[in-house]
């Protein structure tokens, strides 16, 4: 999955593809030979639910 993460990181910093259509992105993934890796990556992300809050809420009074 490391290759897929590197691919995503490159995508995130490439203005020519960052906001590309779903079709273009699918084509890029296919050309990079990462279809299976991306599927595995998405499955991993869905299984590993992360809690994102960093603020506990109001102080006790």
């Amino acid at each position, binding site marked *: 999955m490391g290759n897929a993460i590197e691919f*995503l990181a490159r995508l995130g910093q490439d203005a020519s593809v960052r906001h590309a259509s779903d079709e273009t992105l699918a084509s890029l993934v296919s050309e990079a030979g990462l279809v299976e890796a991306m599927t595995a990556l998405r499955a991993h992300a869905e299984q590993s639910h992360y809690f994102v*809050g*960093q*603020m506990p809420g109001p102080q006790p009074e």
Partner: protein
Amino acid sequence: MANPPDAPQGSLVCVGVGMTLGSHLTPISKSEIERADVVFAGVSDALVEMWLRGMHPDVRSLQPYYAEGKSRRRTYEEMVEAILTEVRSGKRVCGVFYGHPGIFALAPHRSIEMARAEGYEARMEPGISSEDCLYADLGIDPGLLGCQHFEATQFLLHRRNVDPAAWLFLWQVGQVGDLSLGKLGTGEPYRQILVDVLARHYPLDHPVIIYSVPTLPIEAPSIRRIQLADLPGTHITTSDTVALAPARALVPDEEIRSRLASLRRSEVA
């Protein structure tokens, strides 16, 4: 900058990776991650954490500190202690947090405060926050009409002076009203109370935007438009922010305008 000669050796810097993988990491934050001895990761999802692991061989996730039913206050205290333990052992520590490490983030502020109090060098590097992305994706300029930001539960618990002529942004609505601080999300009855409070200032058909930033560069921002009355029955995640557009026009302050005009006239004369 090196520690002063008499300062303890450990150090701490808290940085933000921004919201979207690959797009938002600043050069200075990347450099801090790479030169650290130990990296602690409080990020938004498993893929961002994997990305971080590609930048440093010793990345320690802060995610295991969360648990359903456990007070988030205790969770954040344990995060701070884990970070400070490494600083005290003389390590150069980097705390990496999603978004901006100083916005709606207790552990980074507290860690830096405690490290400094104990004589260690500690500071923060800003990151691109959810708020920054919101302005870009929703096309809102906070300077135009002004805006107010509140943590949703705090907003419920206190009588705030809401200005309906400005934008109103409510954060952490997914956990609104959780007084136990241990729930990973609250439901419809809690959001109904929020709507009842908002209805003091806005009509029930007032437009509401529910916004969240994509964490992956292959995703688009989530922008849902509903009416205020529909907020309780709408699925809200912990990543969602609720935005209410201004409900009325700005009211001119004629007295102040007159004083400023007098000043201007006296300067011209």
